């Protein structure tokens, strides 16, 4: 039985590092663990002993129960097209001039590719624990909504309407119902633009059955996973953390807790500086006021969303080896993360 932990949060909060730290701590407790990361910093890849980290999971040279893999975040529609469409159709889609533009317009395809990869690792049943570092696009929530977003896109109302039912064909596109919009579109955008878009959409439609079936499996995985929300006390990450607590119960499951990274010591609030130089006393007072802001925000968050709260102290150097990664999980304050790791 594989236990999945999804580490969610906006960009720049230390999500990838915490994901690695959870897998390290678990491996050192005798749990066979895999960490799946998206775009790890070089420092972290080095810490995991995995300079050449690739999409295939590989074990750590000195920590045999610790495995790591990296998801290629750029694998997107090209991969999906080849997986779910006939080879000839897939080739035509990828060479369509609107393919690149459409991919940019619909970044959920990248999140979907990541979710799909993560699900593959869970299906493999080769680990007791799989820690998944979710990609931060669109505030991170997109990873969780991408299966339904993808299904909607390839089978949605627009496509059905444009392509005229289950068997798409060019003639349906020029069906009576579509004519006024197309005439207007032609006038403003030019006919060639619309034709290219239409062909792309119709090709996309052929992937519907495959995408829909896989989406349902991925959604089941997401609902059964344990989700941890990571944030710092900065405004943007906090907004994103709030979104997870509001929206995840609908699309996946209620987060198991919130982890505040880069926390200042509460002891600095209103601290007496003692007999020190004036610039040091003023500096302590400034950081004390920032520490108070952090604490007030944490307490308000925990009470408003009725959630477990874990804090990780602000370290001045990022973890550079397995020991410091493990310490990130064992030296927390508040609710311990260790029980979450048990299979």
């Amino acid at each position: 039985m594989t236990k999945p932990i999804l580490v969610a949060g906006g960009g720049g909060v230390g999500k990838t590092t915490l994901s690695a730290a959870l897998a390290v701590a678990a491996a050192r407790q005798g749990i066979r663990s895999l960490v799946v990361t998206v775009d790890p910093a070089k420092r972290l890849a080095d810490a995991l002993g995995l300079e050449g980290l690739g999409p295939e999971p590989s074990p750590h040279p000195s920590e045999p129960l610790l495995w790591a893999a990296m998801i290629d975040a750029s694998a997107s529609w090209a991969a999906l097209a080849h997986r779910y469409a006939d080879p000839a159709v897939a080739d035509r889609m990828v060479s369509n001039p609107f393919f690149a533009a459409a991919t940019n317009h619909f970044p959920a395809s990248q999140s979907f590719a990541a979710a799909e990869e993560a699900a593959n690792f869970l299906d493999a049943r080769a680990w007791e624990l799989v820690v998944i570092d979710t990609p931060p696009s669109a505030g991170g929530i997109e990873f969780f909504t991408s299966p339904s977003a993808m299904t909607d896109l390839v089978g949605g109302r627009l496509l059905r309407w444009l392509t005229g039912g289950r068997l798409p064909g060019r003639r349906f596109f020029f069906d009576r119902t579509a004519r006024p919009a197309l005439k207007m579109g032609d006038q403003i955008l030019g006919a060639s633009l619309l034709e290219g878009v239409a062909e792309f959409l119709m090709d996309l439609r052929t992937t519907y059955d495959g995408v829909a079936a896989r989406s349902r499996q991925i959604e089941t995985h997401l609902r059964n996973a344990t989700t941890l929300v990571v944030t710092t006390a900065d405004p943007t990450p906090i907004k994103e953390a709030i979104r997870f607590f509001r929206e995840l119960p609908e699309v996946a499951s209620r987060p198991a807790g919130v982890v505040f990274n880069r926390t200042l010591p509460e002891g600095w609030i209103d601290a007496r500086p003692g007999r020190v130089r004036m610039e040091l006393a003023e500096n302590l007072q400034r950081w004390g006021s920032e520490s108070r802001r952090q604490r007030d925000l944490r307490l308000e968050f925990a009470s408003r969303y009725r959630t477990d709260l874990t804090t990780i102290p602000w370290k001045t150097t990022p973890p550079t080896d397995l020991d410091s990664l493990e310490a990130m999980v064992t030296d927390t304050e508040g609710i311990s993360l260790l029980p979450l790791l048990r299979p």
Partner: protein
Amino acid sequence: MKTPPLVVVSGKGGVGKSAVAASVALSAHRAGARVLALSMVGNGAGLASHLGTGMLDTAPTEVRPGLFALTIDRSKALVEYLQVQMGLPAFATLGPAARAFDALASTAPAIREIVTIGKVAFEVRKKEWDLVVADAPPTGQIGSYLRAMKTISELVPTGKIREQAQWMEQILMTETNLMLVSIPEELPVSETGETLEWLQAEPLVKQVELVSNRVLPNLETDETNLPRGKAGDAARLHLLLQSEQRRWLEVLPPHHRLPFLFGVVTPSEVAARLSDEMDDWS
């Protein structure tokens, strides 16, 4: 140099774009300018909170005398674009065709972007404002907005949209200051660096201005002789963060800096403090 009439504020997500955009608007307003602040992202809640106002409307609303704000709603902007700029008849009467066109336009490349940037350019062209400040999409997306006119011109051989694209491109090239906000950390700085690089190869705006946000004050103290206890611990953290920040500040060409605001809670207080700093810039 006279400030161009349009300031587009971008940067990596989370660096304080909305706060800086609001501060630019507040500072110019305080200097006597008639200012429009507009949000190109989401529902404009970030810009609104920094301006100390409630939800923004899609039409200019006076936040205080001489300072206006609005948010761009893409489907409304599309309707406005088609009616005002393309001269189409009242859109509502077109019924389902309008909705379908909206759906189609959001799939076709560059349409969404040109509608949004077009609304911004339209406000500049109205000449009702001394300054228009746009809280823009993050650096990862800003290129597709600034490039939307070129993309359209390449994709569409003829048609009204092509003519429209030309004057919008002019506004960016002759009247626009792109303000790139970063904080002195690795990822925001490298994103700013990459943006500067491609803008040098492909100039799309009149000028680019860099701003670093959340810069720590200098702590001048003897590092080797720090006391035990909290004051010493706080100093050690500060000195380490400060040296890290200095390293990233030096990567970029010389530019304006905005201070880290210790313990400041409300967005409107943040914008007020940052706009005070900007008063001394010019």
